[in-house]
């Protein structure tokens, strides 16, 4: 059979590198020029390339939680502006219109060829977690009961029209955030990243021709789809169900149930979240984009380390997430923690289900939280407000072949920590401790990784917001392995050690210490000493 025009295995491989190089380079520009610690030190951002229809063709290996949700941003931008012009840039953060949670600001640009003014040849997008987007809490990460308390909500709007920045819009945006200088710097960094992406895509098309570029965009989607179908074919047909819980939603003190039933049928799968709890009062709701991202992440891991990150991965998989549930919330449910916490539990549930289908390919549960801490207040030294946000790593679940790693971020995030010295230069904060929590990993033939203890002292009165999980529940072990230890949050005030809840706001006095101890990973297999007895 003669090959179809765009099925040349050589060009396929070449274009795979070309598209991902564009996304990677955008990421370098964004990281090196941004201001928010979340972006520059912690790399909480993503850059991606889309075809002319808005399907994601390549995403740089940045943050998995953006995998499935970036395409929805582009879709929302195209729906709002079906005729984007050359030089336009659309900005958005509305979780219900292409966003994830409000701090994640996404910029979408059409890529036009020089001289072409009718149809974009492609799209590119960058998303970054900004340190503050207004709302009730410094850092915009706290337990709210309405989306509007979580910050300024921006539907898709054109920040730049044919190369001209809409200054009115920009000022309106900056007037609604606590650290406007920093926001402006970050948005400029994103604009620069998009420009680089635009230029690189233009020169790609000039070099290879539009037909080949589009042809291989499609071929790459099909390629990833083939990889996924192959994986599904390998897994035994059947339905696999697993449920797990979030500790609480930060408002009501009761666990929130998440269930997934994964049905594998030949080379296709259905992932059904029916049976998960209804949307909750506090900020733990996930929008549909987050749930899709979690599904995407799990299958992306299973198809192999170097497969392209594109929409083809999800093509043979149907996701059912009942509207109005905690995994597909309705506006204006608050969502800031859905992105960071609920997404992790969705992964735990999916892996739990798939462990039944593919026991050798799935590890025990990792810490299952990102341990979000936001600290805000008035910085006397600078005479200006400050907001600081970070997430803390923990234990990785043991695999069927080895112990879990200690003190690393897992699954839906991979953000770096902020160096103690960088933090102390920039904020009235001091890091007093960063160490592994010995013994927190689950027991087993292979042990779960250890969690972390991180103690941060405030040098000025401040407000802190915590969104952390697995403070009541524990990361599960597999095949007889024990669970990882729950996390613990403390306020240390002089000699007093005050236990803090997993989620909520704390008023801090100068000198107070927040001591966060993150969960360990689950163990795998029955421990050898127990085997004997």
């Amino acid at each position, binding site marked *: 059979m003669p090959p179809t025009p765009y099925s040349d295995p050589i060009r396929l*491989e*070449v274009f795979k590198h070309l598209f991902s190089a564009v996304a990677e380079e955008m990421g370098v520009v964004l*990281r090196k*020029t941004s201001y928010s610690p979340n972006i520059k030190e912690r790399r909480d951002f993503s850059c991606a390339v889309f075809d002319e229809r808005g399907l994601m063709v390549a995403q740089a290996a940045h943050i998995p939680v953006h995998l499935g949700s970036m395409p929805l941003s582009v879709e929302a931008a195209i729906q709002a502006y079906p005729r984007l012009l050359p030089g336009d840039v659309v900005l958005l953060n509305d979780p219900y219109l292409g966003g994830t949670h409000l701090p994640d600001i996404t910029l979408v640009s059409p890529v036009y060829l020089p001289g072409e003014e009718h149809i974009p040849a492609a799209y590119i997008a960058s998303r970054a977690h900004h340190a503050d987007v207004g709302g009730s809490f410094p850092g915009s990460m706290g337990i709210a009961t309405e989306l509007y308390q979580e910050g300024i909500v921006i539907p898709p709007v054109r920040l730049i029209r044919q190369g001209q920045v809409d200054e009115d819009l920009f000022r309106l945006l900056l007037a609604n955030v606590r650290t406007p200088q920093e926001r402006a*710097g970050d948005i400029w960094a994103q604009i620069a990243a998009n420009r*680089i992406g635009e230029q690189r895509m233009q020169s790609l098309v000039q070099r290879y021709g539009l037909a080949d570029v589009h042809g291989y965009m499609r071929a790459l989607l099909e390629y990833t789809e083939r990889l996924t179908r192959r994986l599904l074919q390998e897994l035994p047909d059947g339905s696999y169900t697993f449920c797990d819980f979030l500790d609480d939603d930060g408002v009501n003190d009761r666990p929130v149930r998440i269930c997934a039933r994964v049905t594998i049928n030949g080379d296709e799968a259905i992932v059904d979240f029916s049976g998960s709890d209804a949307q909750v009062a506090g900020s733990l709701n996930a929008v549909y984009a987050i749930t899709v991202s979690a599904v995407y992440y799990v299958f992306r891991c299973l198809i192999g*380390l170097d497969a392209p990150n594109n929409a083809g991965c999800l093509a043979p998989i149907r996701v059912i997430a009942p509207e109005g549930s905690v995994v597909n919330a309705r506006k204006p449910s608050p969502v800031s923690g859905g992105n960071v916490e609920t997404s992790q539990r969705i992964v735990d549930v999916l892996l739990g289900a798939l462990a039944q289908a593919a026991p050798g390919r799935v590890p025990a549960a990792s810490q299952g939280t990102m341990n979000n801490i936001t600290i805000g207040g008035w910085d006397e030294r600078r005479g200006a407000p400050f907001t600081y946000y970070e997430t803390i790593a923990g234990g990785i679940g043991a695999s069927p072949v080895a112990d879990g790693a*200690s003190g690393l971020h897992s699954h839906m995030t991979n953000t770096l920590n902020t160096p103690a010295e960088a933090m*102390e*230069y920039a904020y009235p904060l001091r890091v007093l401790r960063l160490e592994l929590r010995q013994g927190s990993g689950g027991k087993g033939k292979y042990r779960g990784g250890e969690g972390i203890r991180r103690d941060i002292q405030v040098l000025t009165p401040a407000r802190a917001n915590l969104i952390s999980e697995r403070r009541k529940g524990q990361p599960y072990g597999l095949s007889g392995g024990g669970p990882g230890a729950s996390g613990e949050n403390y306020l240390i005030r002089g000699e007093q050690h005050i236990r803090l809840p997993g989620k909520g706001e704390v008023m801090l006095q100068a000198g107070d210490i927040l001591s966060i101890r993150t969960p360990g990973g689950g163990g795998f297999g029955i421990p050898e000493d127990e085997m004997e007895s």
Partner: protein
Amino acid sequence: MRMDSIAEAKTGMGSIAVNRLLVGIDVGGTFTDFVVYDAGVGVCDSFKLLSTPGDPSQSVLQGLEKIQSEHPGCEIWVVHGTTVATNALLERKGAPTALVTTAGFRDLLQIGRQNRPALYDLFVKPTSPLVERSLCFEAEERVDQHGEALLALDPVHAANLAERVAKSGAQSVAVCLLFSFVNPHHERLIAAELRKRGLSVSLSSEILPEFREYERASTTAVNAYVTPRLDVYLGRLDQAVKDKGTARNVRIMQSNGGTMRLERARRHGVQCILSGPAGGVVGAQFAAHLAAEARGDRDPLRLITFDMGGTSTDVALIDGEPRVTTESLVGGFPIRIPVIDIHTIGAGGGSIARADQGGALRVGPESAGADPGPACYGRARGKTFATVTDANLVLGRILAQEFLGGAMPLDVEKAKAAIAGVGKSLGMDTEQAALGIVEVVNAHMERALRIISVERGYDPAAFTLLSFGGAGGLHAVDLARQMGIQRVLAPPLASTLSALGMLAADVVRDASLTVMRPGDTPLEELSRLLEPLVDQATGELVEDGVAPEQIIHLPQADLRYKGQSYELTVPLSSALLEHFHQAHHRAYGYHRHDAEIEIVNLRLRAIAKTSKPRIRQSKATNQTIKSLAAATHLVRFTSGSASTPVFRWSDLAPGDELQGPALVVRPDTTLLLSDRDRAGIDVYGNVIVEVAPHQGRV
């Protein structure tokens, strides 16, 4: 400065009675390369000996004895590139090392920046840090960002701590306390106690006095880990050359492209981690400089070096001088001292090609290595691997009988069978598969070349591509064409370029310090802050035998817009801020005149220029092209097969001109020219290819 003057400074000799030979020695995994230079004659010899990995000094001493016997009565001065430090790190064979941190930060090296190396790997394996947990110690002390001691270090505690470290079994100790670059007092107290107990000590405030504790600790720990090994090796070598009188003076190549004296290298292992590759870049710079001079080109060098070997490829960019980075990662460990910015990818001649499950052709990163090597080596006992070298052989681009000068003929049939196997699983014939393998590996190479050029704000079209390394010549011209590069330079000394680079290298010291000052800080204040760095670097160069008046100081500063986390290095001058805006624009496509600027680090590079080796020029012969053609060979190009003239490099003379298609063969490498490429030979035997532009789209 001339090397002679170092001798004068050291020995006080007014004149030099004996003839002096300079010898560049580069120890590689397979071969140890020697380049011998006599100031009166020029480069007079270069040769290779098999390396002796068990004790690398064996091959070095063998070579020196050979040179000594061939040049009786000469005084030998050596510049040496060593992989002892690199291998100690990569093979994890360093000294048992302890770490001392500020209390609360014992797990600093283990936790690192808390990110996992591969995003989509469900089975994240625990990494093993250089220092095991039982050898990590905490000092009860705390200094703030202004250098004030919030908790002073109790001398009794320091002594007890040192006692515990000494009893732990560690031989070497890295000390990294928070903000020690602002106030090194506590680190020094601990160091004194440790040294009293006979331990080798590396202080973060000396190795890298810059903020960001993990990266500083990592750099310091690497130094502590590799230095004792390097110290033993260099000590033994020093003793041996002194005992036998083979060499009078040994200098060591550093990762920053300069040299330092052996005694200093014995204490600064981390400076030698990229010793060999740095020599290669300096050698390339030197070769390109000669070529430019020969054609009367006085513009600053703009060069991209391309060193494609069997398992990996190194690329670097020279814009006047080699680009330097402070963000290198070796064996997974951040090393933040300035080193030549060499980007390495895991693709080379031995990279293995295969069809993957989704039906794409993949090449590398797995390599067939030297054993069993490519299928055409005929060494495989079981499974054979189809490699890039096999593809080139199938395409007629390598002459099977000429490989290593005929010492190891290649098996074309085995190569064909291996490539056919890959082709079969992709539904293509052997030739198509071979062309595809070359195209895919070129895509990897092009990505690497773009990272060091386009992504750093340089337009490759303005650069010359300098190809060295065994596999480079087959790919360099096509790659240049894809990148819009118009000229490729292939030097005749390619296989010993690194050893030559060591002879051309200047004496260099780098010093830095985090100062964290506002952008409007007066230049006088910055100069004052720089003074200790000037004193330190000058003092060290003088110790190394350099006369103070021969030292050139290049002060620089790392700046960023206040609030950013990545700095750009610009020359320290009255136009500091403007230079920063420009550098930012160049690197990232925009700048912000309205934004506040922060001066993060001051840097000082102190250089003592050495006199460069003179290379003999050959006389032009102006032979016609036809008479040169040794034979023709059928070569498969993307556009089709063509009968291609084959030239022996050694037959080429200055003034010769070649017209592609052509193969220029040498025992260690082959240069491939396509149709319409033209090449000339200069007085140094360099082949200079004028690359034909693309016709239409690829």
